[in-house]
C-alpha cells in the first residue's frame, strides 16, 4: 500500500529518550522463583515503568526492547537501542543465587564518577533500596554485560531483588501476587531514580494500589497459636487467617506508603455463616485512627468492602479487632489501599466542594457544621489546612494549576480538586 509520506510522519520532538530492556523472555526464563519467573516480573515492571516515565515532562519517548513474552537476543536488544539513538538504556533484571541471599544491586559501565552510566546508576540503586528496604549490594562495574558494553548510550542494568529468596519471606510470592504493589514499587523506584538523575519532576506514586495480604511481611497476629490458616482466600493469595473472635484477638497489616496521600481503604475476607457479626477495623492514618465496625457475616465477604477514605503519612497500619460480645469467626485476609482517582467530585452531601473544577481564586467547601479540611497536593504533601463552620474556604495562592485533594478531618472524606487559574 502506498501512502503519502506526509501522512505517516510523526514529528520527533526534542526531549529525552529512554530505552527500557526487560531481560530474558520467551524460552529464556531468567531466574526462577517458586511462584513466578524473572522474565514475567521484569516485563511487568518495565511496562509500568514505561507508563510512569511517559508521564514525565521532558521525556519524549520511552521504548521497549520487549513488550511481550518472546525471545529477543542480546544483539538485537542493543542493535535496536542503537538504531534509535536513545539517550539512556535501562535493563531490568531480577537476581537469583541460593535462596538465602537478598538485596539490590545495579550495574553500570564503570565506577568512574565521571562516567554518565555511573551517575545514573547511583540514584537508581538508592531509590530501589529505599523502595524495598533490602540489603544495599551497591553499584557495580558491569562492562562484561553485553547490554552495558554494546550500547552506544549510557546504560545500566538493575537487579531489583533476588527472586529466589525464601528465608524471611518469599520474594517471588510478593511479585506473583503483587503484594504491597511489589512490582509497582520497583517501577516507581526506577522512575524516581531516573528523574533524580535527569533533574526532572518525579510523578506521584499515588496512582498505585497498595495490597497488604495476610502473607505480607507486614502482617502480624496477637498469638499465632490462636489463629488458624484457612486454605481459601483466593484471589488474594492462597489462604487467610481465622480465629474465634474475642477482645484479645487482633491481626494487623502494615505497609510503607511510598508517597503520602489519600487512599480508599478496603478489606477482603472470605464469606461464611459462622463469621463474627461485629469486628472492628482500626485504621491508623495521618490524623490518628478511626474505628470502622463491620459485620463479616452479612456485609459481604468474597469481595472488597470499603472502610472509607483516609490520608496516610509515610506508613499505613490497619488492625482487625475482635469483640467479646460478638463471637464467631473473624477473618484476616487482605487490605487494599486505592488512590483516590475514582473519588467523586462531590463525595457526600455533608462535605462537598461548591465549584469544582475551579478557576476563581478560591475553593468553597460546604460542611454540616464545624469542619477542618486538609489540602494535599498530587504527591500527597500536606500543603494547607482550612477551617470553618458550615463552610470553609481555601485560597490556592501562588500554587500551580493541577489536581489537589481535600480531606475533611472528622469524616476522612476526600474530594479531588481541579484547579484551573
Amino acid at each position: 500500500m502506498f501512502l503519502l509520506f506526509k501522512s505517516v510522519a510523526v514529528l520527533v520532538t526534542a526531549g529525552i529518550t529512554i530505552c527500557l530492556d526487560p531481560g530474558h523472555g520467551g524460552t529464556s526464563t531468567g531466574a526462577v522463583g517458586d511462584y513466578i519467573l524473572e522474565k514475567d516480573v521484569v516485563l511487568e515492571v518495565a511496562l509500568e515503568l514505561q507508563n510512569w516515565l511517559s508521564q514525565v515532562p521532558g521525556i519524549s519517548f520511552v521504548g521497549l526492547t520487549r513488550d511481550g513474552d518472546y525471545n529477543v537476543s542480546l544483539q538485537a536488544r542493543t542493535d535496536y537501542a542503537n538504531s534509535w539513538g536513545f539517550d539512556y538504556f535501562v535493563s531490568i533484571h531480577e537476581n537469583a543465587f541460593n535462596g538465602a541471599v537478598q538485596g539490590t544491586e545495579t550495574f553500570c559501565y564503570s565506577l568512574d564518577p565521571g562516567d554518565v552510566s555511573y551517575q545514573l546508576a547511583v540514584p537508581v540503586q538508592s531509590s530501589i533500596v529505599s523502595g524495598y528496604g533490602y540489603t544495599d549490594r551497591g553499584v557495580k562495574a558491569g562492562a562484561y554485560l553485553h547490554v552495558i558494553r554494546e550500547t552506544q548510550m549510557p546504560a545500566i542494568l538493575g537487579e531489583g531483588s533476588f527472586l529466589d529468596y525464601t528465608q524471611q519471606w518469599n520474594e517471588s510470592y510478593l511479585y506473583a501476587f503483587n503484594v504491597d504493589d511489589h512490582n509497582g514499587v520497583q517501577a516507581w523506584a526506577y522512575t524516581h531514580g531516573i528523574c533524580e538523575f535527569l533533574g526532572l519532576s518525579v510523578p506521584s506514586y499515588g496512582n498505585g494500589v497498595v495490597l497488604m495480604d495476610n502473607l505480607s511481611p507486614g502482617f502480624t497476629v496477637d498469638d499465632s497459636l490462636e489463629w488458624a490458616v484457612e486454605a481459601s482466600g483466593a484471589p488474594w493469595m492462597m489462604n487467610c487467617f481465622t480465629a474465634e473472635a474475642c477482645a484479645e484477638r487482633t491481626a494487623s497489616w502494615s505497609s510503607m506508603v511510598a508517597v503520602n496521600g489519600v487512599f480508599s481503604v478496603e478489606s477482603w475476607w472470605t464469606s461464611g455463616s459462622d463469621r463474627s457479626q461485629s469486628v472492628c477495623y482500626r485504621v491508623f492514618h495521618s490524623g490518628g485512627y478511626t474505628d470502622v465496625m463491620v459485620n463479616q457475616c452479612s456485609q459481604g465477604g468474597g469481595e472488597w468492602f470499603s472502610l472509607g477514605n483516609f490520608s496516610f503519612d509515610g506508613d499505613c497500619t490497619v488492625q482487625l479487632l475482635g469483640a467479646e460480645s460478638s463471637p464467631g469467626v473473624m477473618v484476616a485476609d487482605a487490605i487494599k489501599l486505592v488512590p483516590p482517582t475514582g473519588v467523586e467530585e462531590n463525595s457526600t452531601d455533608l462535605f462537598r466542594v461548591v465549584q469544582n473544577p475551579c478557576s476563581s481564586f478560591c475553593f468553597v467547601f460546604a460542611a454540616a457544621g464545624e469542619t477542618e479540611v486538609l489540602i494535599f497536593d498530587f504527591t500527597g504533601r500536606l500543603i494547607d489546612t482550612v477551617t470553618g463552620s458550615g463552610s470553609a474556604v481555601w485560597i490556592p495562592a501562588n500554587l500551580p494549576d493541577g489536581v489537589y485533594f481535600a480531606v475533611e478531618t472528622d469524616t476522612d472524606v476526600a474530594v479531588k480538586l481541579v484547579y484551573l487559574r
Partner: protein
Amino acid sequence: MIVSFALVFLAAVSSPVSSGGFAAFVTAGGESVCVVDGGGETVSAVDAEIGERLSYPALSELRLVYVSSTRGLVEEDIISGESAVLSAERTGAPWFSSDGDLWYTFDGFLYKNGVSTGVEVPAFYVSVENGVAVFTDRSDRLHIVSLISGEGRVIQGLRYFSPVVLAGGDVVVSSLTGEIVFVPAGGEPVVVASGEQPCWSYRSGGVFFCVSSDDGHDLTAADLWFVKPGEEPVQVTFTEDILETKPACSGDLVWFLDAVADSPNCMRTDVSAL
C-alpha cells in the same frame, strides 16, 4: 579460502562501517572512533574528550562523520585530521549514500548535505539510496519513501529496525525477534534467515549476517552466515574462540568484530570464495 586478520584495536563496539577499503568503528564507552585501512593499519583515531561520547560513525572515502555527545555532528578528514562541526544540534545518525551525499535527520526532518529536504522522517536512523529513504517509526513499522514522488510505503507485522536500502530499491531490515527480512523493490517482505546484523554484499549478491546465542547476560557463541534471497543460508565462520559479530561488507572483505567481552577486536575475512 576464508582468512581472518586480527587487528590490534580493543573494545570496539559499533558495527564497523566500510568504504573504499577503510573501516571505521567506535570503541567501548564511546571513547574513540578508529579508522583502519585494508592492511589493518590505523589511519585515523579520534579520541573523545572527558565527558564526551562518540558514536555512529559513517564513512565515505576519506570523509568520516560521527556524532559527538558534546559537539554534535562532526566531520573528520581521515588523512589530514582536520575536523569541522557540521551541526551543533542533536541530529540523527549520519548516513552516506553511494554517491557521497551525507544524510541525517534533525527535528523530524531529513537533511541532505546539511540542508533540509522538507521530508518528514520521524526517526533517528535513516538509509538513503537513489532517491529512496527507509526508516522505522516508533511503532517499529518500516517506511519506504520515494524522495522523488513523495509516495511512501509502510510495512508492519514485525518490530523492524535498522533498515538499509540498496541501489536497486530493495531493502534489508532486521526484526527484534531475530528475522532478517528482504523487501524487493515494490514487492512483499520475505524472511530470508534467522539472525542479526544483516549486511548486504553487492559483490556476493546476498546478505552476510550474524547468528549468536547468549545466556541472557553476554554472548556465548557467534558466527557469520551468508544467504542469497530464495536460497538456504550457509555458515561462513566456524570458530569457537572468536565471536564474529557485526559484519560490514566491502568488496571481497567482510569486516566484523570479535565480541570477546573484555577485548573485542575488529577483524576481517576474505569472502571471495562465496
